[in-house]
């Protein structure tokens, strides 16, 4: 993975030192809250419902075991013993003491981490494919490009005060595991028709929130050397013409919609012509030296075994885990293993400090000391020997992390909701827990098969409810938490947004409603092979609506 040079290191230490002074001046009364608030937000520190929340950046979700141990230490010493992995591949702490924040930032800086640009109207954490570098369907590893984007966007003076926050995702694979269609900019490494040369395809104007929009391709292919210049051209057009008069119309998707994708692309191209040969143009040596940071680990060429054989193991719980949580790796003898953070013991995406330490030890032992946070709030060990999978699973079981539910209805994506968040209208963790109870029977979850279920506590959609096959949106109806049920969303290559099925449900009613929805699918599908989404797309919402709202 990327290792900080002296500039990166100086930058994060300096930032921690600056914030120490800012906190001291705020507490002494030298600066006002209005002056302090943008400073704390620039360091990821939000005021939430009950306490300060700190969002720590995890660039493209990639963590070393050493970093995870430090995150565990911070959870234990500076917070209440746990952390929450988010849909933007970051980590949040929920109970932060303002006075101790500067020390906390020093701890992060000591392991090449920070909370810079995890809030505010700037370019946020760059996200990517959790299987980057190991996926069988990958054209090229996107991480060197994600890191180049991270460095370009960090403290970019021109883009420190954009009309609104800005999210970029990049993938290098055929299958989209980074939800690029619902980002302000989605970048894909693709092969050009004809000569097969790998370049970049740019989608712009995707997003969720209040106005869910799928990104439009404005550049189907461009040389990789133009990664930064073309991205900068997009940001320049947005920075100049994006609306600043209305918070709800300030995202780039609104600008792209109002101009039309073709006109937006024309303006970007005009800007790009001016800067494409500037210092933003990447030299091939720069790309190559960045790629060196992401060189494959020392795989053991004698590693053997097949995943098919593991799936036929007589140890049925283990075989089920392989079936659900393990995927093929590009190197023979290795596999990609997901650790589900959707246990019934803790809220979705949460991990205790002790579990973090234990997972870090497992990453050292089983995955070359690296792991990845994915946007479905699970952890991925990208490099596990197939002949070590069973040993890994056994160790995960002892930690309560051996759950075999990736991709099933209990693999629920869920924002912090009204238990923590000051923007939320309704609790989401409570609903996720109730649904996990409801579908706890593994046989039932297996019968239902692949389905994504996403919950957000408000329209801002941190739980990505728009793109869940089943989406749940929390609302406040006359002071009482209610939940709208949405159907038909997808975050993958066939990206789509769910439609509201009908009137909202109370917290008590929603598990039954989801149960009826799922039962309707099982009854209506042509065969167990027909996915939930395909059944819905074939039949539309009428038969689902009829069954979900049927009077008992």
């Amino acid at each position: 993975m990327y290792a900080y040079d002296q500039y990166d290191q100086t930058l994060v230490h300096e930032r921690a030192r600056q914030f120490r002074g800012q906190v001291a001046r705020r507490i002494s009364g030298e600066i006002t809250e209005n002056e302090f608030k943008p400073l704390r937000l620039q360091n990821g520190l939000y005021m939430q419902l009950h306490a300060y929340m700190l969002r720590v950046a995890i660039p493209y979700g990639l963590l070393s075991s050493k970093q995870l141990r430090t995150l565990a230490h911070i959870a234990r010493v500076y917070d209440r013993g746990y952390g929450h992995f988010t849909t933007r591949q970051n980590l949040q702490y929920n109970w932060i003491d303002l006075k101790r924040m500067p020390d906390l930032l020093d701890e992060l800086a000591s392991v090449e981490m920070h909370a810079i640009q995890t809030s505010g109207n700037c370019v946020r954490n760059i996200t990517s494919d959790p299987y980057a570098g190991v996926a069988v369907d990958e054209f090229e590893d996107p991480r060197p490009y994600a890191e180049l984007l991270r460095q370009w966007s960090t403290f970019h003076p021109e883009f420190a005060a954009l009309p609104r926050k800005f999210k970029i995702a990049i993938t290098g694979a055929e299958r989209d595991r980074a939800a690029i269609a619902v980002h302000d900019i989605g970048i894909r490494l693709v092969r050009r028709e004809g000569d097969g040369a790998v370049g970049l395809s740019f989608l712009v104007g995707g997003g969720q929130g209040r106005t869910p929009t799928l990104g439009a391709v404005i550049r189907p292919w461009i040389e990789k050397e133009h990664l930064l210049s073309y991205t900068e051209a997009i940001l320049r057009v947005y920075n100049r013409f994006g609306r600043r008069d209305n918070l709800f119309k300030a995202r780039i998707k609104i600008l792209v919609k109002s101009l039309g994708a073709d006109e937006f692309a024309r303006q970007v191209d005009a800007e790009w012509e001016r800067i494409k040969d500037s210092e933003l143009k990447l030299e091939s040596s720069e790309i190559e030296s960045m790629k060196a940071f992401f060189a494959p680990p020392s795989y053991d060429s004698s590693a053997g075994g097949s995943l098919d054989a593991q799936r036929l193991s007589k140890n049925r719980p283990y075989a089920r885990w392989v079936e659900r949580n393990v995927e093929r790796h590009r190197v023979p003898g290795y596999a990609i293993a997901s650790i589900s953070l959707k246990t019934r013991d803790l809220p979705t995406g949460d991990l205790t400090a002790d579990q973090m330490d234990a997972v870090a030890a497992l990453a050292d032992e089983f995955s070359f000391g690296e792991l990845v946070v994915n946007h479905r709030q699970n952890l991925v060990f990208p490099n596990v020997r197939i002949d070590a999978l069973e040993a890994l699973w056994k160790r995960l079981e002892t930690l309560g992390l051996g759950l075999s539910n990736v991709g099933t209805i209990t693999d629920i994506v869920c924002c912090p909701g009204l238990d923590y968040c000051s923007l939320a209208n309704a609790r989401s963790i409570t609903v996720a827990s109730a649904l996990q109870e409801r579908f706890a029977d593994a046989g039932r979850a297996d019968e239902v098969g692949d389905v994504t279920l996403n919950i957000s506590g408000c329209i801002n959609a941190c739980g990505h409810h728009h793109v869940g096959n089943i989406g749940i949106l929390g609302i406040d109806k006359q002071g009482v938490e209610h939940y709208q049920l949405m159907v038909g969303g997808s975050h993958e290559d066939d990206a789509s947004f769910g439609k509201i099925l009908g009137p909202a449900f109370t917290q008590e009613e929603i598990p039954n409603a989801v149960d009826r929805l799922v039962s309707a699918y099982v009854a209506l599908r042509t065969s167990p092979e027909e996915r939930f989404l395909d059944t819905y797309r074939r039949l539309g919402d009428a038969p689902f609506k009829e069954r979900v709202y049927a009077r008992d």
Partner: protein
Amino acid sequence: MPWLASVYANHLRNRASFLIFSVKFMTVHVLTANRLLDGAPLYLADGERWVDALANAKVLRTDDEREHHLAWARAQEALVCDPYVLDVTETTGGPVPTSARERIRAGGARPVLERLGYGEGQ
């Protein structure tokens, strides 16, 4: 019968809470802010002091009262951040927020931690 409508609306509002039979006579307010050092919710009580419990908060009945106390709270920057007033219903058990958000916020950290399986945290 506007008062009856008000009673019914209030019943609906609180049906998810323990205050099923409370009666609302008028919309009143409470002033709140977050403590600077740890972000914990605080409420304005009689005698212009901050308290942790919403039950002990002072109920503000007039625009003048709200404006006066907001101005005071804004000058309390050494202790608190972002003061604002919230809608409450007066009940025998004290003021109860009309929004789910403020009811959960007023419940404090402990119920959240217990509900989510963390006890009181570490």
